[in-house]
């Protein structure tokens, strides 16, 4: 799925002595950051929050925004039952909250950053049956926004953090009325970052290639084959700013030292 895109890009960079491209997959943010630092990886394409974290760990920089399946940006929400007593995030202390999964920007990072910014302490739980520590918010992974919503609807958890788009869709079939307790900043959906070791001219060339890829038939087909990428464009400044506002919380939660 990824190799044709890499080959396309490599082919376009042949004048720069690039003969081929390779795809590398890391099983953690730390591993990816390490590979970039070690110059084993030149370009990274991931969600904007994950990319921010990698940038924080490896010194890489934002290059472009990636439109995926027609979506260019998103945000997360924390929802509760309409009839619940929770009016602020801080009201969730001592409750169990459902997130989607660890690597999910919208289902985990953005809500957690929001809740953390509200001063809540989050503690992972083994399951729904486990009670959260006093004063902290216990959280479980639903691994599925539908499950998260079901838990909220059926009082299995006090709240759920998920992408706003998922909530809007699932709320149509909600068992009971729900309401939004918190909404995160809007961030780019996916971004492209490049290692700081990469030549500036090469980085510019890559930027130019990607920005124009969707204009050609070959490029459009290649992008579409790359996990339904619609196009690449410049990261809007406001969205970049929003992302950047997450740096403090991110550093606190993941223990990143600013360079």
């Amino acid at each position: 799925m990824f190799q044709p895109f890499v080959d396309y890009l490599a082919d376009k960079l042949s004048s720069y002595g690039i003969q081929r491209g390779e795809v590398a997959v890391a099983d953690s943010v730390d591993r990816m950051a390490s590979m970039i630092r070690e110059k084993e990886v030149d370009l990274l394409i991931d969600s904007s929050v994950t990319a921010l974290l990698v940038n924080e760990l490896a010194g890489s920089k934002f290059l472009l925004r990636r439109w995926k399946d027609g979506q260019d940006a998103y945000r997360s929400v924390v929802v509760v039952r309409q009839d619940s007593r929770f009016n602020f995030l801080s009201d969730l202390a001592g409750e169990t909250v459902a997130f989607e999964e660890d690597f999910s920007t919208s289902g985990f990072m953005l809500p957690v950053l929001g809740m953390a910014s509200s001063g809540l302490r989050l503690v992972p739980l083994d399951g729904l049956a486990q009670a959260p520590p006093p004063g902290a918010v216990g959280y479980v992974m639903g691994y599925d926004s539908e499950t998260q919503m079901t838990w909220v609807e059926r009082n299995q958890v006090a709240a759920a953090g998920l992408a706003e788009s998922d909530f809007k869709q699932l709320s149509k079939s909600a068992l009971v009325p729900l309401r939004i307790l918190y909404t995160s900043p809007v961030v780019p959906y996916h971004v492209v970052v490049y290692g700081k070791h990469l030549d500036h001219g090469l980085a510019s060339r890559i930027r130019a290639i990607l920005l124009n890829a969707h204009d050609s038939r070959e490029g459009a087909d290649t992008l579409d084959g790359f996990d339904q990428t619609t196009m690449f464009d410049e990261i809007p400044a406001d969205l970049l700013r929003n992302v950047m506002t997450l740096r403090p919380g991110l550093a606190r939660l993941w223990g990143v030292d600013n360079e």
Partner: protein
Amino acid sequence: MNAPRYGLGVKVALIASAIVVFIGAGLFGVVAYEQRVTFQEIRTAEMVEAVRKTAFQAENHLYNYNVRELRSIATGITEGRRIDLVWILDSEGRLLTDGSPRPALRNKRPQIGFIDRLLSGGLIRTEADETNLWAGTPVLLNKNEILGYVVAAVPMEEFNNNIWSTIQKQSVVLGLALISGIFAAIIFGQRIAAPVESLREAADRIGKGDWDVKLDIARQDEIGDLAKAINIMAERLNDGAVTRERLQALVDEKTAEIAMHRDKLEALVEERTRELQSAKETAERASLAKSEFLSSMSHELRTPLNAILGFGQLLDYSDQSGMDAEQRQAIDYINNSGEHLLNLINQVLDFNKIEDGNLSVYVESFAPMDDMQDCFAIASAIAAKHGVTIELKKDVPVHPAIRADRTRFKQALLNLMTNAIKYNRRGGKVFLDCNVIDDRYLRLIVADTGMGIAAERQHLMFEPFQRLGHESSTIEGTGIGLTITKKLVTLMRGRIGFESEEGKGSTFWIDLPLDPQWKEDAPAGASSAHERPAVIAEPKNGKRSTLLYVEDNADNIRLMEMILDKEDEFTMISAPNAEEGLAIAARNTPDVILMDINLPGMDGFQALQALRACDGARHVPVIAVTASALPSEVQRGLDAGFAAYLTKPIRIDVTLNAIREAVASHEPGLV
């Protein structure tokens, strides 16, 4: 119009094909039905197994409402089991997942009757409706609390598609089977029809006589057996033909021999036939000559006998005072012998007729008493001469009429009476009697006290020329009287018989049939003119009548002249033939004419016709005189217009009576 003819091969092929189609369609239907049932059962079992497994797997996740896991379970179930729909519902029947992300029915209870019935209680449930086959089960927590439900369904369309697919596959198989079956049937039919056709051709050849048939059909079945049988039959027929040819040759040879013998035999038969024909013709000519001779002799004898008896009677009627006893006896001898001779002649003629088969009778109805009286009177005269007493029983009732020939009746009765007299002894007796037998016959009985007939000769009684010991006696007789009598009685449909005891006498009887329709006052059977009682008419006072006698025999003319001379009331003129008689009659107009029938040239009948055409003599009565005494002749004469019919030899009293009666009836001035 003939129905189309289909060969055996076609019929076998059609029948076999029909059987293939029939069996195929039957199997098709059964298999389709079985498959549908089986398929549904299998699918139901699969679904039951699926929902059970799903329920087992979903128990914990239902407890935690872990939709992601439940979705995964549902997806896993549908992917593995050809189940199109799996619903995992909460305890209220609301959909948690159907295996797809964010299902449309999420948190909603499907409005399906099956769901309602599933939620109403019970454990696992299966149902089929118009659209789906359903299976569902509750998911229990500790067998008490219902955590939710698992429902699975497959659309019925799947069954139909499956069955349709099966039908298509089976149709291909059936089509192939049908084609194969028809092909096999055609081959089979040809294998049967071809040798059968050969057998038929062989049978046709044999039927047309061509027996050199040799069928080459080496099959080990019924057709092969039939071919062998036909070959054997043809061989046998060939053998038989050879034998038949030999037999035919032998038959032809023998037939030729038989034909030769037959020709010889036919020639011999023809020769013998010719000889017999010649002999028969000779005998017939001889018989005819005899008859003609006898007839001629009778006539020839009657004519002189007429003169003899006539003159004898004349002498008998004449004054005999000048005669001595011998002369008077001589006159009696003349008359008796003449009468006997006449009787003999009559008997000979009758016997001849019997032999020729020409004796006939003229049957009529009449009351026989007068005739019996006549016979009695005649017999009395004869009996007196024989010294025999004859007696008529006085108690004879008034008998009804009989059907008989009057003349032959009297002839037969007189024959019996004269026999009774002749074969009697002097002083003997004869009785005449009669009775009615069985209301059918009149029996005439003639009994005598004569000699009787020996028993050993009685069987010869009615045989001709049998005189039973009297051949050399003085008793007159020819021996044919009883033969004639029996024949006459038989011809008159009567019976004759006798009883006799030698030395004591005999009793003869004749049975003649009665006429059941007779009436006493009926005029039939009245006495005819020629046999009227001898009542002599009175002579005409003071006037002589003229009588013309046409007769070719001079003796008879002389006799008649002498008879009439004695009466002194007639003037007789005569003519020797009819022509002269007619001329005299026309010229003299006599009062009466005696006309002999047997005349030379024109006979008496022709002369009568001529007279009736003659103006002058048209009304003159004519009396026939003839030697022929046949009743048919007498009747013919009366029918022709003769006033009377006299037979020769004439009796003087009868003749005079007839003449006078004729004259009296003829009054010239009045006609």
